[in-house]
């Protein structure tokens, strides 16, 4: 640990010289929580935050989760999945040109976009449930802003060192050393940002061929534009803006207020155990004083620039890095861990004797969210598992509405669209139910007979012209009901489309 010069002390510490040690062997960090409400003015330029590296179970979990989620994001477009001939073999692909969404064994057509809507509803309800149980863990662990910012800070640490070295480097005059470190950091940032933007576009085209075309300058302009946009946003949001995105831009911190309650587990400083805080001297008794030695390790670790000891704050993303920082100190000074921990207001009140009940996992709010989540999931699952492999769409000609033939019979034309969602070619038999005397003919197949069969290629829409003629004696009303039914000959799966026959009677 390095000693700090008096000049770098925070304004709040001026006047009385702060002791260098918070306890025996524990350095007292001179740090101001720049984002704490008391220190932040309206119309104030951003003050840089230099989060200090901590070690502990939460930090370890965050590293693992970061590696896993980035691996998924960068790697997923390269995963192959065998499909029928003529279909893309990319496991996850949003194919705008072919108008399909592929996700491993699932293939969604544009008219089935409600599955995506359902997924979004499930995602939203899951977020509500998790937030009401554990606060903003999404923000602290899973949000892309947090993950990429974490990664960018790690790069920064690699080039510029940990908190103290970074602060010193920023204050130092420009030198070849400083230039090299800053340049290296920004180059790696830009490379990561470019990889992020580049990976994004791979979800929309065949990854290997698009990647090749991209570097040969032959990819479509949209590929370059979107890669550029994502490169820019990654670089600026994760590199430059960081915690400001969460504090000023993101609506989620505001919404979370409606999700959490007294029994939500949030990162909490147990003030009743920590106060009164103050430096602990060698041999001093722990009786009559709090466990907080005011070392400010929690403040130095905070990527949001707040002091968790000020209580619940809008800026807190529940990332638990302060828990790791504090626990390490507690071990060192041989006090129990958990001065800062995931805890609820209800638990705090119970410990203070103000309430009888502590945290309940099962409470109306979590039950509502869980039930809603289960309901939507079941509906989606049923809808998906009973998803039909065929679709029938019958469009009656409107121009002309009907055609009178020379013998007095009347003919209507229909465009029949059969959607084959199988990945194999299928044959479909069309039957038309209607008044007696009805006759059917198909354009391009004069010998089709009364129950024509159509072949539709794998994963395609077949479009056929069908004429229905009714003899003069069947024309009993201005319009008569007809029912078109197609049946997949291999499986006997049916799709039905009722329609009308216009006779022209009375016109």
């Amino acid at each position, binding site marked *: 640990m390095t000693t700090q010069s008096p000049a770098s002390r925070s304004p709040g510490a001026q006047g009385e010289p702060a002791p260098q040690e918070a306890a025996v062997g524990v350095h007292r960090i001179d740090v101001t929580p720049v984002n704490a409400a008391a220190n932040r003015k309206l119309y104030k330029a951003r003050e840089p935050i230099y989060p200090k590296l901590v070690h502990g179970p939460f930090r370890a979990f965050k590293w693992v989760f970061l590696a896993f989620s980035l691996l998924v994001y960068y790697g997923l477009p390269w995963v192959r999945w065998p499909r029928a001939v003529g279909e893309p073999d990319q496991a996850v692909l949003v194919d705008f040109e072919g108008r399909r969404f592929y996700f491993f064994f699932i293939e969604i057509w544009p008219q089935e976009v409600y599955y995506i809507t359902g997924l979004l509803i499930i995602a939203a309800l899951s977020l509500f449930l998790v937030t009401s149980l554990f606060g903003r863990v999404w923000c602290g662990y899973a949000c892309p802003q947090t993950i990429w910012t974490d990664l960018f800070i790690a790069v920064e640490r690699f080039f510029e060192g940990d908190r103290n070295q970074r602060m010193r480097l920023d204050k130092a005059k420009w030198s070849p050393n400083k230039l090299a470190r800053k340049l290296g950091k920004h180059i790696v940032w830009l490379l990561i940002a470019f990889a992020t933007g580049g990976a994004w576009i791979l979800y929309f085209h065949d990854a290997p061929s698009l990647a090749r075309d991209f570097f040969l300058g032959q990819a479509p302009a949209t590929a370059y534009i979107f890669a550029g946009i994502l490169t820019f946003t990654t670089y600026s949001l994760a590199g430059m803006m960081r915690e400001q995105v969460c504090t000023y831009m993101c609506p989620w911190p505001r919404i979370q207020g409606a999700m959490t309650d007294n029994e939500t587990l949030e990162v909490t400083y147990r003030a009743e155990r920590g106060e009164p805080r103050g430096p602990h001297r060698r041999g001093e008794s722990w009786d009559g004083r709090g466990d907080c030695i005011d070392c400010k390790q929690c403040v130095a670790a905070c990527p949001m620039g707040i002091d968790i000891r000020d209580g619940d704050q809008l800026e807190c993303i529940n990332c638990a890095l302060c828990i790791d920082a504090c626990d390490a100190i507690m071990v060192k000074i041989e006090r129990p861990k958990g001065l800062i921990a995931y805890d609820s207001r209800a638990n705090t009140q119970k410990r203070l004797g103000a309430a009888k009940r502590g945290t309940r996992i099962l409470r109306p709010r979590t039950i509502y969210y869980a039930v809603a989540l289960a309901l939507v999931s079941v509906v989606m699952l049923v809808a998906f598992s009973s998803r039909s492999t065929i679709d029938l769409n019958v469009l009656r000609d409107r*121009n002309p509405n009907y055609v009178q*033939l020379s013998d007095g019979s009347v003919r209507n034309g229909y465009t029949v669209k059969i959607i084959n969602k199988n990945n194999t070619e299928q044959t479909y038999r069309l039957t038309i139910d209607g008044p007696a005397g009805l006759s059917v003919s198909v354009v391009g197949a004069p010998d089709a007979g009364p129950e024509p069969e159509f072949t539709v290629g794998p994963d395609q829409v077949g479009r056929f012209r069908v004429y229905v003629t009714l003899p003069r004696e069947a024309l009993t009303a201005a319009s008569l009901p007809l029912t078109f039914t197609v049946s997949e000959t291999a499986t006997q799966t049916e799709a039905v489309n009722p329609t009308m026959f216009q006779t022209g009677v009375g016109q």
Partner: protein
Amino acid sequence: MSTPDNEREIDAVSGVETTGHEWDGIKELNNPLPRWWLWIFYACIIWAVIYMVFMPAIPGLPGAEGATRGLRNHSERVNVARDMAALEEARSVYFSRLTEADLSEIESDPELLTIALAAGESAFGDNCATCHGAGAQGARGYPNLNDDVWLWGGTLEEIRRTIRYGIRSEHMETRMGDMPAFGRDELLSREEVNDVAEYVLSLSGHSEDAAAVDRGAETFAAQCAVCHGDNAMGNRDLGAPNLTDTDWLYGGDRETVRETIWSARNSTMPAWESRLDDAVITALAVYVHSRGGGEED
């Protein structure tokens, strides 16, 4: 501006100089233009100069045709010609197949049929719909192409021939049939025309005057049966319609039939050979044939 300092008026409230104009006691402040606005204005001027260098810009200079060409040598006319050529090129793959294919093959080949129907529908909308209607449903004097009534034949080959050479057009190979204006040209008297009309109506069961029908039948046999046939079933070589069916091109009421016999109709259709290329004409024939009334060879 050039107002002397001692004449400038400063607004007491805002401390800003006024323009000196006054309307009913309301004065206009002379605020400067916002800086950002000025920068955009200057940027536009610079952009205009650059644009004039690179793009066609200054008209009427001696030596320049139309306008200065600009360094990029840009021409919308050339661009359109290039796009059209690219379109023709892209289409030619399919169109050459249409031209080469035997007519009867097209309908049994699903891919060719799809191409022909798409091209035919679009060409029909551009060229034919004006008279025959967007749905080919026809109008008075313009045949309905959806039904099974054909003046000149409803097979693919006959339809293509009609489209290619037209009806009573100026083309040498045109469909030709000429009905005399029996009344106007005084070939038949007014009474005879009325009697023939009565006979024609009786063929589809629309006459009650048996005596007139009998008189008309004689005249019909002498004057009309040459083209329309002894049994009035028509003659497609001459475009003479079948008079016994329920379909009337101009109308089946008594007055209209009399008028048709009196002054004849002889409607026309242009020859499309000189306006559309062969593949489009073939596609049109397939499209019309597919409208439901097409006949097999």
